[in-house]
Structure formats: structure tokens, C-alpha cells
């Protein structure tokens, strides 16, 4: 039997606000435990939540970016459960009425082997605002800082759990898709596209290591051609695209094998173990909590007016699709190039800055996607951290355009620029790469070459094209590579036809 995997994603994106979603505490990552836990974060008796308008603006921004319905009225609910890092005993989230409704994201699934690349629309079910929980730290932390006198039993690394509430109340936008994906490749393509989009519109820093972008993947399988969905298992908290692929592939195989062995799938939450590459059930549905959702009486319904939307829209950056179309029209780039340059806002910004600094568009595109991207990938850097700035690159490309240096020489200059902070022209000077474009000098040099190679001239005259190239090579060699090849070509042609 042929199986089909059906995948849906729930992504928690941490919003780039200054403060927490319901209090004025900072959300900066990496602070000392509990130094960013105000009275609301700790859930002291009597404290109340106040909604952070910045978080709402982020949600509206996302809704606009995916052409979603934005609810004129949405409601915050309490999701009740006990956990030590959930200080109120409930999480404030949106349940029945989310702020962002149905929308869609178009993904580009790359070619794999013989299968060509293709586009696909992934439908977004909803996106809702909620608060993050704190962190439980099970042992392994700095015991020196604990006041042991306070504890009856001796404190050891093993028997101690610490609670850090710095993260408690951090604003999240949970983005939920329809079960529209049919492979790990599609899922990763969607996750990457979403990852880029939330950074593009400036609502999330996308830092997966710090947990700013966390994906829960719902996987089920069914015989191909059937309509009914299989029972799903949810893989929790995947924090890299590599793990996502591994986890989906393992989970899919596991489910198919289980069914082929005559078993059934139990709905469950599973964890992916990066060390073994396996998924393992954490809790089954029978153990699931009854969260007793109800509207939070401490918060009024969230109202979003047309004016609110217009205000956010006015501050929206140009979206990738629009920018791609513009690159094609304005710069004459191919659809492929325009698409590649708009995979990230930083990359697009870098490209535009290069062009705006006077470099030619197509050449800029080639360099950004070629030499620059190769270097960045090799060193695992982002374009924002490129040692060669857009203005430097533009200067370099201008020197190719004005025939100061050859393309090959430019690559050498680029290598130097990458490793040192130095001016383009200074590098060209120091490496002695400046092209000879003085026609008098070139003519004299070619005369010398012709005089030294009469045999080649004969061959050329006998119709051997290769001989011409050999003569060009000799001329370039004589100029130590500095002669402008186009000029050499031209002069050589003229002299040969005259002789």
C-alpha cells in the first residue's frame, strides 16, 4: 500500500516587543534568573494583566502579511493547569476568538533529485496572542548562589529544581496551519518561509536557539487516496530545520510501520531526541489536561478597528512577493534571481543598497547570490554580518565596470576585503591589479607579442581560431594579467587583419 503523510504546524513566534505581553517587565534574553520578573510575572496576589499594544500591532502586521481576516473583536481566555513555571496556574491565551483568522502563505519547495521545484499554498487556520511560561531548571545550576540555610535538606545538583520567571509573560504569536503539508520537504519549506516572513515584517528575531521560533509538528499517515485523516501525533518544540526533517521522517516511518504491523496510532505528544534521531511519546491523550478555558475577566475583549489596521499597514515594509515583482520590473532580473534575493529582508536590503551605491543590478545580483552567499554559507554568517558592506561591494563592481580591474582580479580583491577592513582602491593598488587600458601601451605590447610569435600568426591565417586565443593569452601574460582583455581582443583583431 502507498502511504501519504499529512502534516500541520503550530509555530510559537516570540514577538519583538520591548516588554512582556501583560506587564512592563523586560523580555531580553539571557538575564540572571528572575531579574526580569516583576510582580505580575511572579503572579503576586492582587496583580492584574494589561495588554501590551505593541504585541497587538505585531499580530495585526502578521495578519496583513498573510492576507488574513483580522478579527474586529477577539477574546483572551484562561487556560488552566498547574505547573511550577506557570505562576498564575493559568496561561492567558486566545481560544475561541483569535485575533488573526484564515490566511495563506505560498511556499517554494526546492527540487529534490528528479522531482522539480514547485510552489504550494499553505492555508493558515489562525494566529493568536498568548503569553509564554517561565522555565524550570532541573539541577545543574549555580548552587553557590543559593542560601542553603533556608533549606531543610542539603541541596545538591540533583534534588533541586529552580524556577526562572524571566520568560514568563513573553508575548507569543501562535500560528496554526491547516494539515496541508505532505512531506518533510514541504513542512521545512513552510517553516523556513514563515521564519523569514516574521523576521521580514519585524515581529520576531527568528532566533531558534533562544527559542524565539519553536515549531510543534502534527504528523499523521493515511493510505494514499483516502480522505479521512489518520490519528495524529504531535512532535513538540523542534528548534532547528534539520531536526524537523529528521523528526518527521522518523515519525512517518514509525507510524507507517506501526500500521503495517496491524497496530493503531494513539493520539499523543512526542519528543524528538536529536542524539538518537527518534521520537518518543511523552504523554497520551488519556492523560491530557482539561484546561477549563473561559474568558479572562481581567481583560476586556481586544477590539481592532479599521483605523488600527490602516495605521499598521502604513508602517508595513514592502512584502517579499511585492519586492520580487518590483526587482523583475525595475532591475530586469529573472524571476529566479528576484525570488532568491527576496528570501530574506536583509539579503534584499543588501542587494538594493549595492545597486543604490552605483553598481549594476544584474552584476550585483550575481555577486550577492554567488561570491557573497558562498562566503556567508562557508562561515555560517548572516548577510547582516557580512564583512564586505554593500557600498564596498558596489565600489568593487564599479571598478570592474570602469575597466580598472578584471573579474578575476575583483575576486582577489574581494578575498582581501572579506578578511580586512580596507578600501577597495587601496587593495587594487597594493596587489597591483590595475588593468592597463592605455591603448598606446597595449598596442606596443601586442606588437611585441606578434613579433615573437610568427608561427601563430600563420596558423591564424590558415583559419585556426585557437591560435587567436593563444595570442590573446600571450598578450595577457605579457601584461601580467593587467591588460583589459576586451581591448587586447580588439587591438589584436585589428592588427591581424591588417597584416
Amino acid at each position, binding site marked *: 500500500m502507498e502511504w501519504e503523510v499529512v502534516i500541520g504546524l503550530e509555530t510559537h513566534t516570540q514577538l519583538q516587543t520591548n516588554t512582556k505581553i501583560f506587564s512592563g517587565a523586560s523580555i531580553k534574553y539571557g538575564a540572571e534568573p528572575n531579574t526580569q520578573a516583576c510582580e505580575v510575572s511572579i*503572579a503576586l*496576589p492582587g496583580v*492584574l494583566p494589561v495588554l501590551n499594544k505593541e504585541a497587538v500591532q505585531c499580530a495585526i502586521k502578521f495578519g496583513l502579511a498573510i492576507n488574513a481576516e483580522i478579527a474586529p473583536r477577539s477574546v483572551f481566555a484562561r487556560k488552566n493547569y498547574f505547573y511550577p513555571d506557570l505562576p498564575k*496556574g*493559568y496561561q492567558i491565551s486566545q481560544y475561541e476568538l483569535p485575533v488573526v483568522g484564515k490566511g495563506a502563505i505560498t511556499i517554494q519547495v526546492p527540487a529534490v533529485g528528479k522531482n522539480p521545484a514547485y510552489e504550494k499554498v499553505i492555508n493558515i487556520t489562525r494566529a493568536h496572542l498568548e503569553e509564554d511560561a517561565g522555565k524550570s531548571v532541573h539541577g545543574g545550576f549555580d548552587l553557590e548562589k543559593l542560601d542553603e540555610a533556608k533549606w531543610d535538606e542539603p541541596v545538591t545538583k540533583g534534588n533541586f529544581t529552580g524556577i526562572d520567571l524571566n520568560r514568563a509573560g513573553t508575548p507569543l504569536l501562535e500560528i496554526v496551519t491547516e494539515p496541508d503539508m505532505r512531506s518533510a520537504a514541504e513542512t521545512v519549506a513552510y517553516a523556513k518561509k514563515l521564519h523569514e516572513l516574521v523576521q521580514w515584517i519585524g515581529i520576531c528575531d527568528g532566533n531558534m536557539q533562544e527559542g524565539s521560533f519553536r515549531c510543534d509538528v502534527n504528523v499523521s499517515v493515511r493510505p494514499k487516496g483516502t480522505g479521512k485523516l489518520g490519528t495524529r501525533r504531535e512532535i513538540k518544540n523542534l528548534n532547528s530545520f534539520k531536526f524537523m526533517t529528521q523528526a518527521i521522517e522518523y515519525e512517518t516511518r514509525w507510524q507507517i510501520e506501526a500500521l503495517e504491523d496491524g497496530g493503531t496510532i494513539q493520539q499523543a505528544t512526542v519528543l524528538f531526541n536529536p542524539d538518537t534521531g527518534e521520537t518518543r511519546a511523552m504523554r497520551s491523550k488519556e492523560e491530557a489536561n482539561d484546561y*477549563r478555558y473561559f474568558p479572562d*475577566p481581567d481583560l476586556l475583549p481586544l477590539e481592532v478597528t479599521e483605523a488600527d489596521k490602516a495605521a499598521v499597514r502604513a508602517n508595513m515594509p514592502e512584502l517579499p512577493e511585492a519586492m520580487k515583482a518590483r526587482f523583475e520590473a525595475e532591475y530586469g532580473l529573472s524571476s529566479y534571481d528576484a525570488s532568491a534575493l527576496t528570501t530574506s529582508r536583509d539579503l534584499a536590503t543588501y542587494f538594493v543598497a549595492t545597486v543604490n551605491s552605483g553598481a549594476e543590478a544584474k552584476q550585483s545580483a550575481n555577486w550577492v547570490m554567488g561570491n557573497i552567499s558562498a562566503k556567508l554559507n562557508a562561515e555560517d554568517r548572516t548577510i547582516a554580518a557580512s564583512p564586505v558592506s554593500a557600498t564596498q561591494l558596489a565600489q568593487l563592481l564599479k571598478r570592474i565596470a570602469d575597466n580598472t580591474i578584471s573579474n578575476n582580479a575583483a575576486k582577489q580583491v574581494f578575498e582581501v576585503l572579506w578578511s580586512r577592513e580596507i578600501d577597495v582602491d587601496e587593495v587594487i593598488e597594493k596587489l597591483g591589479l590595475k588593468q592597463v587600458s592605455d591603448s598606446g601601451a597595449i598596442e606596443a605590447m601586442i606588437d611585441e607579442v606578434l613579433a615573437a610569435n610568427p608561427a601563430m600568426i600563420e596558423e591564424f591565417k590558415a583559419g585556426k581560431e585557437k591560435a587567436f586565443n593563444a595570442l590573446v593569452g600571450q598578450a595577457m601574460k605579457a601584461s601580467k594579467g593587467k591588460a583589459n582583455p576586451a581591448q587586447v581582443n580588439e587591438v589584436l583583431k585589428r592588427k591581424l587583419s591588417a597584416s
Partner: protein
Amino acid sequence: MINSSLKQLGEMLQAKKISSVELTQSFLSRIQQYNPDINAYIALDEAKTLTQAKAADALIASGDTTPLTGIPIAQKDIFCAKGWKTTCGSKMLANFIAPYDAHVITQFDAAGAVNLGKTNMDEFAMGSSNETSYFGGVKNPWDFKRVPGGSSGGSAAAVAARLCAAATGTDTGGSIRQPASLCGFTGLKPTYGVVSRYGMIAFASSLDQAGPMAKSAEDCALMMNVMAGFDERDSTSLQREKEDYTRDLHKPLQGLKIGLPKEFFAEGLDANVGKVIEGAIAEYKKLGAEIVDISLPNTGLSIPVYYVLAPAEASSNLSRYDGVRYGHRAESYTDLMDMYCKSRAEGFGAEVKRRILIGTYVLSAGYYDAYYLKAQQIRRLIAQDFVEAFKQCDVIMGPAAPSTAFKAGEKVDDPVAMYLQDIYTISTNLAGLPGMSVPAGFSTGSDGKVLPVGLQIIGNYFDEARMLNVAHQYQQVTDWHAQIPNLGKPNLVLPEELK
């Protein structure tokens, strides 16, 4: 002096006929004398209180005063006050020292008032007799065998016994008005949203509202001037112009339309209490008021609706008391679940547990629609009853409680009988309307004891100034509010006409 109005005390202080320290000390010594019997206060801190009194005297000396500068006010132990033990009447918070001030506390501090101490209350404000307090019951100053009502029983007894100049209370279903009726003083529950709930320990967030408990309507108006006002830290706080609640006190009542809901004078009302209310209505007629017969047809549903909604919110609000960060934690436990269970089992009293169980039940999957959602629908019907009623009248009057103060222990084992104490007050909380209780006379209890009876005045939204006017005018022609208990000695003799 202990009987002086807030206005008189303010004038004496500002004229420097008495210092705040002297005034405060006289209340403190009275507390020392009577509180061991009455048990109105949970926490007293002479040093802190006198420091504030000294600061108030300095303000008076510099001329920088408000009408309440230097006046000792008792605070219900539901308000967090920085550095003060704040217990909410519970073992769960028996050792909790609040690290921040509630909005109400901040307002009194800013007015230069003196915090005299924290008053006893039913545990987490759940009760109508103050008998659920972990710190023991409170005696009704009119008869030590009887309860003061609840949940603001400590504040009630303190005002009635003149153990403070005035006090604060909170009212979720009648917790200001029922004790005001049972102890014979003036108490006001404002429109929901008029006084910030920030720092007021939550029982049922959509119903809780703080208000003044004082010797007269005029005193309540002065207290309201301090307590009311928008606070951005409470999302349900209403953004309105600051108002002077004394502004209408002296308006004549000619032409005032008083609605008498037939449901408030039906079965369940003690006949003697009914007589007192009729006497009060007769007095209003003399003042020029017109009487309109009205109906609030859904009054009978208010108790069942309340005992679905209030416990639902409470079950969630009280989840934060888990022994993890503050409050009571069990001495020994085997694991996390055991710690939760033991800490909460030990920390909460029976009534609180009962309500957490009811609330958890009505929010559970499968019951939510039948209970919580249905109750919300009926809540809207109850509010609509009042909208209709206020088309026919300016204020609504009736009893505040169905009987006079009952004996301690009488209803402890019969929660439903206890819940019926709030039959006339609960519907205004459900509708969010303001209500007050004003001393209207005395009635003889079953054992011949003479006990106070309160007249309830219900106003339309934000009509507090008019209600205070209606009460003040009554207090100009009657002296029920000026009667004081003899604290353990035989009380006043009932006037002939009421025998």
C-alpha cells in the same frame, strides 16, 4: 471624638485642635481595649501607623493637605500594602508580607491618610458571616454572640465599634452592604470599574469592587473621592473624569422616583426587617419622593447564577496559591503533585475548597455550556431587568439583607442558608451597578436583642453621587446612623413605635 464625622475630624486636624498622632493613638488604644474581644483586626503595626501619622502632621504643618490627611483608616486585609502582612483571611497567606501597594492603598497614602491596620475578613472574601476567616470570627458590636456579616466583617465591626474613623471593604456579592446592614452603618459598593482592583486580592474578578464603609453617607462620599478614579494597571478600570462625590449631597429629594421591586419584599424577608424598610420609605415620602412599584423578575436566579460564575472565576484566581513562590507550602511531600495537593489542602479552608470545587466543575469540559455559559446568559437578563426598572425610577430601594445579624455558628453548616444572606445584593454585582446600605432602624431579634437594619439603595451606573445625596438627605432627618453599640453592655432601648 470617635463619633466625629470625617469632615469634623479633618477640620479639627487642620485647625490643629488635635494632631494626627493623638487621633491615631486614641483609636489604637480603643483597639487595644476592644479588639481582643471583637477581633476586627488581623494585623496591627503601631510603629508603621504612627510613622504615617507623624508624616501627616508634618503635611498639616506645611499646609499641604487633603480632607483625609491625618485620618486613621482601617484597610480590609484583601488590599496589598507594602511591608504589611496581607493575608486575605487565609492560612495560605498567613505569613505573606506584601511587597507592593494596591491602588486603593496608594490613593489613601497620597491623600495623607493613616493606615490603622488590616481588618479581618472571610477567607478570600468567601462568606457572609466572617466565620470562614483563618484568624477567627469577628463579633458583631451590637451583640457579641452574633456575626457582623461578611465578607468585610472586620471592617464592619471596626466602623460600628468606632475602632477606626472609616474603613475600606470589598463587595463581590454583598460583602460591603450586608455587613453594613448587620452592623448598622453606611457602606457603598460603587459601579464596577470605578475603583481599581489593582493589588486587591481577587475572588471573582468580574464582580469584585472596593468601596467605603463609614459612619455616614457624607463620610462615604469623602472616601470615594480618594478611592475612585482610573488606573491603567486595571484593564477593567473605567476611564472617566474625576468627580466630586460630595457635590450633590445637599440637593433636595423632591420628585425623586423610588422603585420598590416586589421581589425584594416577598417570601424570605424577615417581617420586622420589612417593617423597618417600610418606615424608611415613609420617611422618603415625607422628603418629597414618589414611590413606583417595579419588578426585577430574574432576582430569584441571581443566587444560582452567582454561585456558578463567582466560583468559576475563583477556582482560576486561586490557582496561583500553589506553594511554589510564596504562601503556605506543606512541610513534607513526595513529589510535585503531592506538594500541590498538601499545600492547598492545608492552606485553604472548607468554604474556599467548596467554591474551588464548584468552579472547577462548572468549567470542566462537558459542563461549561450547561453551567458557565448559561449563567452568563442569565447574567445579561438580570442586568436587563435593571435597565427596564431604571426607565421607571431614579433609585431602587429595598432591604440590604433578609434578616438582622444571626448568631455565630447558626448557618455554618448550611451553606445555602448562608448564601441566601446575599439575595438582595448579588443582582447588583451581576449587573455591575452601584448599591449601598444605610442604617434605617432597629429590629428585635428572636432573643429580644435590638439589632440594626440596613436600607439598600441601588442606583443606575455611575449614579453614586445621587445615591449618596439620597442617603445623606435621609440622614439629615433621621439619626439611625448615629447610634452606637455599647460594646458588650446592654444596647439602646428600642423606640416605642418600633416595638
